[in-house]
């Protein structure tokens, strides 16, 4: 894949931050939508039931994989911004065991301060997500997952990705 | 210079050796020590209990003994914190005088005579306990450690609980005695595991409390005031 030292500094920082969460979450830096489609095919997106954020289901459905858009990312903490247009759309990043979020390097900012000061009004919701679900409520032992996803992969593309187009490529 | 010694009530009546050590130390550094008579108490016990009127009346009596003195030093962070941080609000007309009080290590930290001073060697492994009133109340953190580090033969051992309260807390020590003791035992636990020779402290009240706990445990480790470590040895009489 990509070598750490080839990455621009913010990207490298994002990757490190996600790594510091001590979970299975990872950031990947790809050069095309095609590579993203390849990634998803390897994650069995073509075969198994997948939740796509832009094609929400009517009823809650737990799936092995969910795909969503990350509209911003913050390097200092490894956080991404989700803007689900509805509750049903949010299930793609919530009821899936493994979540793949598509982001663009253009939307990578330095830290949470920058993320929140440039954030538009949440409509209907804005979620700042850092890694998969976790708990340390029992003797402060970190356990992943808690009630939500157990793994998050953030795919960074040079330009803003189109989920519909990506879905076509995965299925073809 | 001329230094007026403020003798806290604990020192005067329970730990006079701390006062004597302070005098020896300041005189060895070339200062002239005077001790105003009839010092009683800074008023902290009452203030700590939420009785500021009584505290102010008592504090006033104490502070007025120092009228006309420029440099006032005490071997106790909690008493100096009381005088400098609390009394000025309660006794505004005495505020300038109150502001001249200094804790011993705070004073020594600014005393040019301390640099290169030939402190007598003092052997042993010790932990340093800086009282909370001195550490957080007066912001004095560096000076006590630096002073101890200039003493030949003394190994200052850093402990995990070093910035942690000893549990004395004034009237808290007798209002919640088991809690107070438990906190002290936690503070001292690692020192005991490491079998240190000394706990060196800046505050007489912490000293009484920790010494009391160690004595109850029949520990070999004893508590000393920092003045006792820095001062030349007491002459036998």
């Amino acid at each position, binding site marked *: 894949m990509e070598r750490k030292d080839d990455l621009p500094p913010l990207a490298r920082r994002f990757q490190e931050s996600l790594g510091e969460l001590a979970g299975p979450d990872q950031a990947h830096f790809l050069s095309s939508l095609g590579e993203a489609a390849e990634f998803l095919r390897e994650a069995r997106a073509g075969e198994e039931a997948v939740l796509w954020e832009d094609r929400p289901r009517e009823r*809650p459905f737990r799936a092995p994989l969910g795909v969503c858009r990350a509209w911003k990312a913050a390097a200092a903490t*490894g*956080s991404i911004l989700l803007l689900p247009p509805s*509750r049903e759309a*949010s299930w793609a990043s919530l009821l899936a065991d493994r979540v793949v979020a598509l982001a663009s390097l253009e939307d990578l900012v330095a830290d*949470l301060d920058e993320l*929140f*000061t440039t954030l538009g009004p*949440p409509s209907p*919701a804005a*979620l*700042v997500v850092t890694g998969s*679900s*976790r708990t*340390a*409520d*029992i*003797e*402060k*032992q970190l*356990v992943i*997952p*808690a*009630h*939500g996803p157990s793994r998050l992969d953030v795919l960074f593309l040079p330009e803003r990705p189109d989920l519909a187009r990506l879905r076509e490529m995965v299925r073809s | 210079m001329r230094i007026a010694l403020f003798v806290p*009530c604990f020192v*005067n*009546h*329970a*730990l006079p050796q701390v*006062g004597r050590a302070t005098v020896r130390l300041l005189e060895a550094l070339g200062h002239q020590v005077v*001790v*105003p*008579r009839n*010092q009683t108490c800074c008023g902290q*016990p009452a203030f*700590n*209990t*939420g*009785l*500021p009127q*009584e505290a102010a009346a008592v504090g006033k*009596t104490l502070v007025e003994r120092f009228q006309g003195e420029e440099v006032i030093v005490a071997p106790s962070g909690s008493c100096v914190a009381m005088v400098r941080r609390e009394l000025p609000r309660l006794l505004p007309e005495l505020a300038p005088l109150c502001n001249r009080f200094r804790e011993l290590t705070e004073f020594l930290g600014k005393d040019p005579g301390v640099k290169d001073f030939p402190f007598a060697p003092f052997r042993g492994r010790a932990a340093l306990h800086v009282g*909370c009133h001195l550490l957080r*109340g007066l912001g004095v953190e560096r000076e006590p450690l630096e002073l101890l580090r200039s003493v030949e033969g003394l190994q200052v051992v850093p402990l995990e609980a070093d910035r*942690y*309260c000893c*549990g004395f*807390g004034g009237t808290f020590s*007798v209002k*919640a005695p*088991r*809690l*107070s003791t*438990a*906190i*002290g035992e*936690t503070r001292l636990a690692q020192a005991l595991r490491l079998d240190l020779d000394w706990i060196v402290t800046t505050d007489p009240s912490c000293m009484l*409390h920790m010494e*009391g706990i160690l004595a109850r445990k029949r520990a070999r480790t004893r508590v000393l005031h920092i003045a006792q470590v820095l001062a030349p040895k007491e002459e036998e009489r």
Partner: protein
Amino acid sequence: MKDEGTLQAFEAAASDPSLGEKVRRAVERSVAKMSAHLPLGPERDALRDKARAVRMEALEELPELLERFTANIEAAGGRVHRARNSREARETILRILREEGARIVVKSKSMTTEEIGLNPFLEEAGLEVIETDLGELIVQLRGERPSHITAPALHLSVEDIARTFRDELGIPPPEGLVLEGPPSPEEVRMRAARELSLAARRHLAEKFLQGDAAVTGANFLLADCGAVVIVENENNARLCTSLPRRQIVLAGVEKLLPSRAALGTLLPLLTVTATGQPAAGVVNLLTPRYTPMDVVLLDNGRLALREDPLFREVLACIRCGGCMNICPVYRHAGGHPYGGAYAGPIGALLRPLLEGLDRAGELPFASSLCGACSEICPVRIPLDRLLLELRARARHGLLEKAAFRAWAFAAERPALFRLAAAVWRKFPFLAALTPPGRAWKKGRELPRPPRESFEAWWEKRKDREDPRKERDRGTEG
């Protein structure tokens, strides 16, 4: 728990060394992680100054923020209810749930619902209330109060929790974990913690889908965009707000902020101080356009407290729990002796200030005033100084007042003070008989009186040096 809120309760808790050990083990991890990411020092202080400014300004503008928030929530199709006290809040929430026809209520962690005593009230009204935060679930099963505001089950060991899951949920204890007697090896215990957490995940998975309505708290309320902010790691709040038909948010009025921009300052400090995390798992900013939403804003003494110039800054608290993590009293007694929803230094202030000193007047005295809390507080509330001030407002017993009057009488008269000290030196056993003396001896030896006082030594020394100085005796000894 008996005697909650009294010094007795603290003494009883301190008498159980295993409780203190569990608490300290847990909070030490949070403090160590915090220090690794953002230790005490100038960098942290600069952030604290910013955070404090944001919170104090918000408190100042509270009435306008309240108006704007309400207008925005309503414009988005939500409803805002004002509850003057716990009773009104409970009844409002029950009314909304009944309107919704809700039978099963899922909850994400909310100390404010703890403050108003919501769960027993709803259960008595025939609803099933399911706590979905793991720590809250555990204490709910045990019929206990949460003991820490961000880590409710911090006072419990893996063995305690395994027993609870076995007894209340019929879940068999993890493989190899010894429940009674000497503990299992550390790696077995840590594996067990993981197994139990995953068992809770399985147990709750269905419940999220069964919930008719959700009751949540909020960390902050945003006035400019009409949004509630919920900070979490487990994703249980995400599930509570994305599946049931309706969301009811209960929050104290002091949670209002002018805008989301402030979150960039407040959130990193909140999470790093609470658990040592640079960022929380999820920060939810939710509006009524996302889910049908009722917001219940609780007063319960907050607005009156805002009028108190000395204590109003207590309302700036962002509920991080840092003061609990660092407090020597909390670390030895745990959270339960404080009674109520809030423990540690902030609890020792909030309970008397909101409920009245007559109900919780001993809490300010459950402190050694070490000041570590003020040092860690993200919004620079001088907690230890405020505890001291609150002591001055507390009612003092007649005996205590008399004792201090006598002490002050003596301390203003040096000859009398000297005499009293001399009596102690001569007859030390008298001290051992007094109530303070007896209390002291509970864990320590009393100091042995010295042969002579310092001032006596000083006088003698002066005489030895220059007997002629006798006639010069004035203020100088």
